[in-house]
């Protein structure tokens, strides 16, 4: 048993750190893709896609007319007015951490606190050129340190499961969005037309979920769009896949259900999401339509998040 507010804070700390990491991955891939000579075909659409992946389209276009690299980096990485910018994520995570520091281990707290202390050293000027990658790597490191610290140091009880739920609900959402924004290049019919550009696009989707090298280790037959989709949606050995997230979420909720001796609506939804991925086939996904499937997943995942809040976090 713990304070509902504490559980809520832990859950959101994990979500914000995961969000920052995914944003960093996406920005890195975008930057790489925009360097490719062939990207002239898509006319800077990469940066626009990134804004969409981040879910901050509305806020961005209120402020800017065009998705130039400078605008997008400024808005997604540093803008304090964007509640999901990397800066805002780290600041919010650290503010939440301060409010519940007794529930965090020393390692978790120090990781969030050092990230926050270090943050003011980064700004638009410092990330010009090669600085961008250093910055994005740093963000990724902070998040990995937090997630690793969580697994390595936190007592296995409710507080741990709420933290982990935050990580996986957010990751599941982010993975689905990363794929959804590029779903058209993953369609089977596209494979026929696919040329050099598509290859870069496919690789970039994999890179954004840290799965480029793992994909090759699993399939050993070059990049095939439907295999990429299968890999990211349904392969259990891929730690950022939708099914892995679903399995972790289900597990955390089961543990909470045992600890508290009570199950809620969130348990039912989590089970449903998991079994659909566990027993479904990638062909069915394509039959339904990849975009439709991903949109539905994002929506169900959202509803799951709300149900978790309702059952535990509002008190």
């Amino acid at each position, binding site marked *: *048993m*713990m*304070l*509902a*507010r*504490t*559980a809520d804070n832990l859950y959101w700390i994990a979500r914000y750190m995961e969000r920052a990491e995914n944003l960093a991955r996406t920005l890195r891939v975008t930057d790489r893709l925009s360097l490719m000579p062939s990207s002239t075909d898509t006319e800077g659409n990469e940066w626009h896609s990134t804004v969409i992946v981040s879910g901050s389209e509305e806020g961005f276009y209120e402020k800017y007319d065009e998705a130039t690299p400078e605008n997008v980096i400024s808005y997604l990485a540093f803008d304090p007015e964007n509640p999901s910018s990397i800066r805002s994520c780290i600041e919010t995570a650290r*503010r939440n951490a*301060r*409010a*519940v*520091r*007794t529930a965090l281990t020393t390692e978790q*707290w*120090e990781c969030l*606190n*050092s990230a926050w*202390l270090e943050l003011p050293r980064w700004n638009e000027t410092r990330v010009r050129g090669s600085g961008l990658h250093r910055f994005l790597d740093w963000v990724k490191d902070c998040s990995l340190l937090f997630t690793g610290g969580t697994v390595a140091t936190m007592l296995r009880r*409710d507080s741990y499961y*709420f933290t982990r739920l935050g990580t996986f609900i957010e990751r599941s959402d982010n993975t689905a969005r990363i794929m959804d924004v590029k779903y058209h290049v993953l369609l089977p019919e596209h494979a026929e037309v696919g040329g050099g550009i598509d290859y870069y696009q496919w690789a970039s989707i994999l890179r954004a979920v840290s799965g480029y090298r793992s994909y090759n280790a699993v399939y050993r037959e070059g990049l095939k769009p439907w295999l990429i989709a299968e890999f990211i949606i349904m392969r259990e050995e891929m730690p950022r896949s939708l099914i892995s997230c679903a399995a972790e979420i289900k597990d955390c909720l089961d543990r909470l259900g045992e600890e*508290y001796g*009570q199950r809620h609506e969130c348990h039912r939804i989590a089970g449903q999401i998991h079994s659909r991925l566990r027993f479904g086939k990638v062909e069915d996904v394509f039959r339904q339509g990849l975009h439709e499937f991903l949109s539905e997943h994002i929506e169900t995942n959202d509803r799951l998040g709300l149900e978790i809040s309702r059952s*535990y*976090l*509002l*008190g």
Partner: protein
Amino acid sequence: MAQAIFDEMGGPGSEVRQAYLKLQSWLEETPLDILTLRREEAETFFRRIGITFAVYGEGGDPERIIPFDIIPRIIEAAEWRFVSEGLVQRVRALNAFIADIYGAQEILRAGVIPRDQVLLNETYRYQMQGVSVPENVYTHIAGIDMVRVGADEFYVLEDNCRTPSGVSYMLENRELTMRLFPDLFSRYNVAPVDHYCDELMRTLTSVAPRNCQGEPTVAVLTPGIHNSAYYEHSFLADQMGVELVEGPDLYVMDDIVYMRTTQGPKRVDVIYRRVDDDFLDPLTFRPDSILGVAGLMNAYRAGNLNLTNAVGAGIADDKAIYTYVPKMIEFYLGEQPILKNVPTWRCSEKDDAAYVIEHMAELVVKEVHGSGGYGMLVGPKATKQEVEDFAARVKAAPEKYIAQPTLALSTCPTFVNEGVAPRHVDLRPFILSGKKIKVVPGGLTRVAMREGSLVVNSSQGGGTKDTWVLKD
């Protein structure tokens, strides 16, 4: 009162005092750049752990660290025994006084303290009249501010009976000196302080409300992360293994207090609250408070909840009431006060006010309800204009001010920019009262980092030191 400044180590020209001999030789053999390095490490430690303190209304860094002076202050066993006995005596009397005020008011009937001084005092809470509290204890955690002016001369400067802060610094400072200077630490036989939080927990559970069955559930109530002492609140909750709650985490139903948990409501029995009386319960006190809990006072009165420190405990630490503490000790305990009060002029009295205005440039003048070094004048350090302005304020509302002679606060060796030099210090030990009274051997030593300065408050740039009480 002695005006020569007493240096606790033994300043230049005088002999080094016994307790400081080993420290002095250690200082002589340790190069300054090592000290500088250690000071930097200390600062990193504070920043990393997030031990910060907010200073209100000045802008700038909202999370400032209080300068930590790495050279410990040393108090001998015999000196501490004397101080500690005096503290226990004083806090017993303060508790007896508060209980009396909210009970039979015998001290007022006996004419020892003027009725108006108490009943018209802003810190008096009529809502507490006739309310009985467990063990008759009101100030469960008291911080008594003391200064030293000579080898055997200690004065009490101020009693803090409401929500004294600083104990986390006492504990973290010790942690830090042991880490930074294990060799120096091991040369001394220092009495430990780290059991403070266990004692605090024992104190809190010993004053469970009368309707509590079984092991009481304790929580620490904080105004939230924007409070200047937030770190301390979370530190104490953590060390005691209890929840750190904010107002919205609690609610009252049928005069019972519950906290909102992941498993639904959980009953709370004892709240160590670090929220001021005025903000505790919008139904009883300030209706605009969002820091408190509606109905808390009803639960308290019904015997379903205990609040520490008790509501209304501030009546005992008002600066005007302070002057009567020696008389309280005689009245309630029939004893002579062990610790002296600083002679104080109450401007509410005509003759005193006249004297204070006349001699303002020699005196320290304080607002009766001020704290944290705000709203005070240090006469000898003030400009002519400042003295005149302050005199005008005293004339306008004399009852709001008291004055004391400028004390020659003792100094301790302190590591400052110029090297190791004497700086003025005070001492705040913490006294725990539940079924029993406990004083952990130590306290918070505050040090004025600027040469000659007598203002040790952290809000005014003061620092802290680890305080070593030696064992026999």
